């Protein structure tokens, strides 16, 4: 009997995924470990991730191949989100506040998702195209001739922040604060954002700040309805009831974090990759309108802005020949799926002409596939059109990387813009 098929043997893998040291390596170095796991039989069992909460878990199975992650994502009845989706051990009540309907299964998940999904349909994203265009132009106006800047602050972070906060109806004076709080919430693992002792406390604080912003905004929209997402949220009913303040606060946390950080990180990673691959940059710029569609898929595959989410097994089952038990935790490493050599030729090459490009940058399919994928693509398309047609090639310095096992982040990116 092989190790992989034995239900009782559960030895920790010699490949370490669970320390700060592992995640402090760059993406490419980490993928050497993921490549070894992808090539091995079955699944590998790992020590629990570090946690800031007083919780003990035995560990998790690492899913590293694209096919396995897609299978789990598309079978929510076997692999639940309703016990939490954070790979770091985290109390479920905290996860409920921070991730809201991400930590639900159908049909409950479907009910909440539909409350906001209309804002993210292709037609409704198209409707706000002009607003995205106006904001993208303004962002790039400020970049022309800017000289030495931090590209993250000067560019990457701006369009997603303007877009999602305008959709929500957040007042212009509060937009920066909301985006900053959302960024901090998912960057706590980095010492720059929080010391070890303060991490749990600060996480709760940022969550409360965002939640209260949502509740205040809801109060205002109940008496002053507008044409925005918050107005639809306060008017929505679930099973004949209006949403509670807690639920509205949770919506704001989810939308402000999911709507900001992901597209921001993709913008930084993709600009850096284009600068490092000038032939690809030129190829894209030569026929932007017909080439940007597939190029964006490669931007997202390359960036893999969300590194992982977790699931729990609901009944004894099998993945890739590996016996798994009800109650086991699974880590879905999208970052690894997006470098799976059985799916992508030369997975470590940035190739805008890659076709097909079945990356898992928006998740592995199923009910939790990224709701904002159309919005993200519209933002990237509009912003990169401005960046590539109006600016001289930008010179970049070394990126300052975020230490995180969840967000593939660049904190700062020195740039010289002529």
């Amino acid at each position, binding site marked *: 009997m092989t190790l992989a098929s034995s239900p009782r043997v559960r030895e920790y893998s010699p490949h370490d995924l669970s320390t700060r040291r592992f995640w402090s390596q760059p993406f490419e170095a980490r993928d050497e470990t993921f490549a070894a796991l992808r090539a091995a039989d079955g699944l590998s069992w790992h020590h629990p991730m570090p946690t800031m909460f007083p919780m003990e878990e035995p560990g998790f199975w690492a899913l590293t191949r694209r096919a396995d992650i897609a299978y789990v994502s598309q079978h929510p009845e076997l692999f639940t989100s309703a016990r939490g989706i954070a790979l770091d051990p985290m109390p479920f009540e905290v996860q409920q506040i921070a991730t809201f309907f991400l930590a639900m299964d159908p049909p409950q998940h479907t009910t909440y998702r539909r409350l906001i*999904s*209309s804002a*993210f349909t*292709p037609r409704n994203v198209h409707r706000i195209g002009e607003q995205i265009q106006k904001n993208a132009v303004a962002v790039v106006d400020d970049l022309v001739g800017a000289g030495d800047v931090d590209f993250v602050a000067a560019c990457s972070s701006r369009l997603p922040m303007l877009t999602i906060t305008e959709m929500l109806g957040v007042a212009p004076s509060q937009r920066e604060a909301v985006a900053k709080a959302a960024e901090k919430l998912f960057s706590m693992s980095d010492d720059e954002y929080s010391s070890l002792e303060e991490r749990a406390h600060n996480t709760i604080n940022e969550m409360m700040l965002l939640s209260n912003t949502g509740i205040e905004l809801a109060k205002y929209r109940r008496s002053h309805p507008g044409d925005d997402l918050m107005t639809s949220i306060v008017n929505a009913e679930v099973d004949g009831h209006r949403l509670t303040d807690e639920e509205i606060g949770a919506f704001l946390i989810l939308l402000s974090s999911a709507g900001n950080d992901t597209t921001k990180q993709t913008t930084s990673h993709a600009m850096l990759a284009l600068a490092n691959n000038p032939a690809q940059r030129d190829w894209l710029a030569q026929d932007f309108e017909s080439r940007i569609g597939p190029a964006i898929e490669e931007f997202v595959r390359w960036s893999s802005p969300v590194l992982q989410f977790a699931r729990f097994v609901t009944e004894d089952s099998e993945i890739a020949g590996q016996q798994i038990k009800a109650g086991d935790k699974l880590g879905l490493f999208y970052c690894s799926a997006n470098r799976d050599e059985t799916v992508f030729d030369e997975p470590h090459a940035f190739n805008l002409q890659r076709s097909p490009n079945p990356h898992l940058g928006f998740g592995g*399919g199923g009910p939790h596939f990224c709701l904002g994928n159309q919005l993200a693509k519209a933002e990237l398309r509009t912003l990169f059109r401005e960046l590539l047609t109006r600016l001289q090639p930008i010179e970049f310095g070394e990126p300052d990387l975020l230490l995180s096992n969840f967000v593939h982040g660049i904190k700062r990116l020195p740039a010289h813009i002529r």
Partner: protein
Amino acid sequence: MRVEVDLDKCTGHGICESIADDVFEVQDDGTVLIRENERPDADRERMQQAVTQCPAAALRLID
């Protein structure tokens, strides 16, 4: 050839609409509406793409 959607699976991601917006439209309730289920053979490649790329595996082609 017919293209059909399983509304129990459809979560309205809109990938199909971005491939063929004359055929698929995600409604405000988050489910997809198919305008003409019967597709000419010339449309096979596009429909196949929509089926393959549906993240919820909610679409299928019937000959």
